[in-house]
């Protein structure tokens, strides 16, 4: 028996009690945070009658997916009654290019700022960092003007551009800190072997960047998908993203308030970020830690 095991067995009483307390608290907090999700899900499977008469925490008596179908395909948003599916695709069309472009540009920036340093690279990086601290609201009007000049007002392309510009500060910061610890000798060696700027980036740096790419993609995806302010300001009507449509759906006040449809739509809106977290979450923590320790 090792010394460690002995210590645990002799201290079994207090150790077990502290375990019970720790797990008890964790379970209480988990339930607390999961309750809204539970209410959303159970409500979305109830009929309107049941919602009106029943307990908010009760499970649906006769589960039905009607509300989901309606939310997706036939709920009325403003004057059109085609559900949120069109807006869901709007968001996808916005978030995918915006995430990809901002990640690639951030990686390139990080590469240049750490491995191809030029006079004044610190100032440039400092200015890019500054972009992380500018409040959204303060850039709305200048951004609207720029989009107008470029002819991108009320388009998904315009929204993509806004998100790329706004995300660049963060993605650059992530990649710069990650590449800062990447051995410069590898870059020098590749240079001597005859590899150029982009070849080194593609063949040497990118294959070693998986953790930070995951972090950046999750961060950008969540932020851009959940963004409401830019969406409501720079896209309107048919080109609105999901978040704006959800707001319109919930606040459309004609007739009865269909809580089950609202809840279903809200869950649909939250689903992509949830999936991204579940699929890549492991890497997210690992990448954050790596950045935190080495950066």
């Amino acid at each position: 028996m090792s010394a460690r095991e002995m210590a645990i067995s002799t201290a079994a009483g207090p150790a077990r009690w502290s375990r019970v307390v720790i797990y008890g608290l964790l379970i209480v907090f988990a339930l607390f945070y999961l309750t809204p999700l539970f209410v959303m899900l159970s409500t979305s499977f109830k009929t309107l009658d049941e919602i009106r008469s029943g307990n908010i925490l009760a499970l649906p008596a006769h589960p039905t997916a009607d509300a989901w179908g309606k939310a997706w395909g036939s709920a009325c948003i403003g004057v059109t009654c085609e559900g949120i599916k069109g807006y869901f695709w709007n968001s996808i069309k916005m978030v995918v290019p915006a995430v990809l472009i901002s990640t690639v540009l951030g990686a390139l920036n990080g590469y240049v700022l750490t491995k191809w340093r030029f006079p004044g690279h610190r100032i440039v990086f400092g200015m890019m960092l500054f972009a992380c601290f500018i409040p959204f609201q303060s850039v709305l009007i200048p951004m609207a003007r720029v989009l107008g000049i470029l002819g991108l007002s009320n388009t998904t392309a315009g929204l993509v551009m806004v998100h790329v510009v706004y995300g660049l500060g963060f993605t650059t910061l992530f990649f710069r800190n990650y590449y800062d610890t990447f051995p410069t000798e590898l870059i020098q060696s590749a240079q001597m072997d005859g590899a150029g700027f982009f070849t080194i980036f593609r063949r040497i740096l990118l294959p070693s960047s998986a953790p930070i790419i995951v972090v950046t993609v999750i961060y950008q995806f969540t932020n851009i998908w959940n963004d409401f302010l830019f969406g409501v300001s720079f896209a309107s009507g048919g080109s609105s993203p999901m978040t704006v449509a959800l707001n319109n759906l919930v606040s459309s006040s004609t007739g009865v308030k269909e809580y089950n449809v609202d809840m279903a739509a809200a869950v649909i809106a939250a689903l992509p970020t949830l999936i991204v977290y579940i699929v890549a979450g492991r890497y997210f923590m690992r990448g954050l830690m790596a950045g935190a320790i080495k950066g």
Partner: protein
Amino acid sequence: MAFIEIDSLERTIGGNKILKGIDIELEKGGFLVLVGPSGCGKSTLLNAIAGLQQPTAGDIRIDGTSVVNLHPSKRDIAMVFQSYALYPNMTVGENIAFPLEMAGTPKENRTKEVGAVAKTLQIEHLLDRKPAQLSGGQRQRVAMARALVRKPRLFLFDEPLSNLDAKLRVEVRAEIKRLHQNTHATIIYVTHDQIEAMTLATKIVVMKDGIIQQAGTPSEIYNTPANMFVADFMGSPAMNMLPGTVTADGRGVALDAGAFTLPLATPLTPGRKVTLGLRAEAIGAGQSGFGVTLDLPVEIVEPTGSDLYLWLRLGKALVSARFPATVEQRPGAIQPVWLDLNRAVIFDTESRERIVGAAQEPALAAT
């Protein structure tokens, strides 16, 4: 005209002169070792030759053409880095093939050449592994293979053995020597280890504070060091340094260490402050030529297996002497020793430069 010519090379970083006018020549097939304490500028010099750092003044010519304005990849130079710099995401085979791939060599030729180089360095069985799965010595070999496969006109090694343990270091050192003998490659090698410098080089350049202290063959550096720095830096144990004053008749040196006067082979100006340098092997049992016998108390006994080093008390100074391992001695005993003064190197204490060389040769150091 030499194959490699470095001409009054200078590099200044932020007002600090790292290299203060370096002149080096190296013949084709030569093995040049740059040696010196850390911060002496040897790595900066190597990076300048590689093209990774631009010199602020001076010229580097390879085969008669200046390369200072060429991109590193255009200089036809391969480098083995201290950390080996193997690409972590590629297999060993892909690592070795990378320079060929960049040069646009067709795939089948690449495979063939990688195979040939891998065979020379006995790493054929490792070609499918990733660098992370290799030991230090294997990584070192892969790094050399990647340099060799290009058949460059110049190889640069930046302290390639400093990450290996002592036993492996000796093995790989021998391998590098063999490689040089078999391929007749021109090599410039940086190290802070004077034993590596002595064993590998055909020419040694000793540097300190961005200035070349001495350039010459290993035996020149060892036997006729140009100044007290080189004498102290090269050789283990370090050369015994005995400061003193030239006697009134000019034929002896009265040592500062105590009441000893050692005779001089060549007369010097009376009263001049000089330092007498004697290697451990010039103090020992033999008794021939020009010298003096002293009875000195033993302070420390250091057996190395092959030799026995005795640290002897000479007045206030402690000198090391080399004896055959068969000699038996205890601390505290009195040991009669023969100081072979023909092999003494005399330095001016003031300027720290050599006045009289061991072999009485003209100043080779001035290269």
